[in-house]
Structures are given as structure tokens and as C-alpha cells.
């Protein structure tokens, strides 16, 4: 299983990469919206995308829409990673195609719980093919 982390913070990219790697996932990272859009346009693909809500060059909402426009990402899971604690704001992201949201602070407990809600915790490899 491959995960894509999009976050302008090197700290969050590092923390999420470590956590996802320890769960057996391969992890790619993008530093912002422009890089993420390049990734989406490339031949690469990811089964799980963790997207920051608040980046300098794009909103998480716009990025969710861009992902869902790609047919290759139809079955990929999208999790918003955000310091936004306004659940109603997150509803915009869910309506746009996100599957789940992870409120900061990010840690192993929070992440694995949310991955569990997406059915990705126990045997991530089992979801490799769609």
C-alpha cells in the first residue's frame, strides 16, 4: 500500500512518514499544492492520501476536488489532516470527496484509529488491489 502525504510542514511530513512507514506503508510526500498536482498528473498513484487543510498555495478543499477528478484515484482513500477543529468546515471536505479527517495533534493513536475507520489498520497490504 502506498500513501501520499501532502503538507507544507516538514515536521508533519516527517511524523506521518514515520508513523505510516511503521504500519508497513510506502510513503511519498509533497510539500504543497503545486507539487501534489504534479504528482497527480504523473504515472504515480497512491491508495491513501493525507492532505493538509491549510497550505500556502492551495486549500485542502481544492486539493480534494483535484484528486477526485482523477479517475485513477476513484478508489483511493482521502484523509484530511488539519488543525481545523470546526467539524462543519470538515464537512465541506467530506462533501467534496474526502473520506475521513484527522485533527492535530497527530500521533500514533489518533492515526491508527482513523485508519481503522477507513478499514486500513489491521492488514494494510490486504487492500493493495482494488
Amino acid at each position, binding site marked *: 500500500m502506498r500513501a501520499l502525504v501532502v503538507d507544507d*510542514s*516538514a*515536521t508533519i511530513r516527517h511524523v506521518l512518514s514515520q508513523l505510516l512507514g511503521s504500519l508497513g506503508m510506502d510513503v511519498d510526500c509533497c510539500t504543497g499544492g503545486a507539487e501534489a498536482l504534479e504528482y497527480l498528473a504523473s504515472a504515480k498513484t497512491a491508495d491513501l492520501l493525507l492532505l493538509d487543510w*491549510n497550505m500556502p498555495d492551495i*486549500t485542502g478543499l481544492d486539493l480534494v476536488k483535484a484528486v477526485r477528478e482523477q479517475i485513477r484515484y476513484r478508489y483511493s482513500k482521502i484523509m484530511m489532516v488539519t488543525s*481545523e*477543529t470546526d467539524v462543519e468546515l470538515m464537512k465541506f471536505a467530506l462533501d467534496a470527496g474526502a473520506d475521513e479527517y484527522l485533527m*492535530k495533534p497527530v*500521533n500514533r493513536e489518533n492515526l491508527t484509529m482513523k485508519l481503522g475507520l477507513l478499514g486500513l489498520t489491521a492488514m494494510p497490504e490486504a487492500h493493495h488491489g482494488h
Partner: protein
Amino acid sequence: MGIDPFLLLRPDILAQVAKTTFQGAMNIAVEGPLALPAEQEGLWISSTIFISGEWAGLLRLDMPEGLAGELTAAWLGLTTVPDRSAVRDAMGELANTLAGILKPSLPGARSVSVPRVCDTLKALTIKGKRDIIGATLSFGNRLFQASLWKCPPEFCIKVVPKPELNKVPALSR
């Protein structure tokens, strides 16, 4: 017109939010609020998150550079202090998380900015300043500071770098 929620916030509430942030993100216990001000000289890192909306202001986290480096290393699982940009990024993320947790306590606060991080030569003096709530915290015997500032709405509208977030349609409540 209801009571401004800012008037209900106290240093101990701000300190509790900071404790929750540090514990949740880094699994690190910090203490506070302490009665003494965090006024050590030396290089400090100041991380600011601007909050816009009907309630506007900013959240600021001020930490001595040495302590910031040590905490960043712990957060990233490193045995040595990472470079300056990594430390500043981590401090910005901490402030960002702190602001996010605090935001529901500020009805009317609409959106938060990306972090602005800069160096200062000493901690901010907060005592006696109107429209600023500050809490001195400590890790070990090293002091740092979190503060919440109330600002005129037009101030933060100008500096929040994400105007598109302000265009999110009004939510039914």
C-alpha cells in the same frame, strides 16, 4: 450582544490547551501556568498564527531557541538537534495545533493562518498589557510562553494569507 469570549479565557485555560498540544503531539509533559514571567535573554523563536473572522486576533508561542531545538529533536525522534529551518517549522506546527484547539473557545473565529515564525532577542513582556492573555510554561526548568492577542478584525483580515478560506459560505448553525 453576548460577552466577548476572550474575556472568559484565563491563563490557566491557555496553559491547559498548551499542555494538551504538547502531550498529544510530542508525548511531552509541560507545566504551567507559572506565576513568573518568561523573560530570559537570548535568542527566542516566536511562532504566530493569525485568527480571522468575527473574532480576530493571534496566537503566539515564544520559546528559547535551545529548548525549541531539544523539543523538535524529541518530536522527530532524532538524537541531535536538527537544523534551524526544521526547528522553526516544528515550532510553527505547534502554534498551529495550539490555535486549532483553542479556536472553538472563540466563537466567531473563522479561519487560522499558516504559521509565521521569526527570531526575537528576548521573550515578549505580557504582564499589564490589555487584550493579551499570556501563560508562562516550563519544560524542566526552562520557561516558554503562549499568548493570545485580541486584535481589530481589519488587522487580521489583512495579514491572513488565505482569503479563499474566508469565502467559505456561511454555515447554518
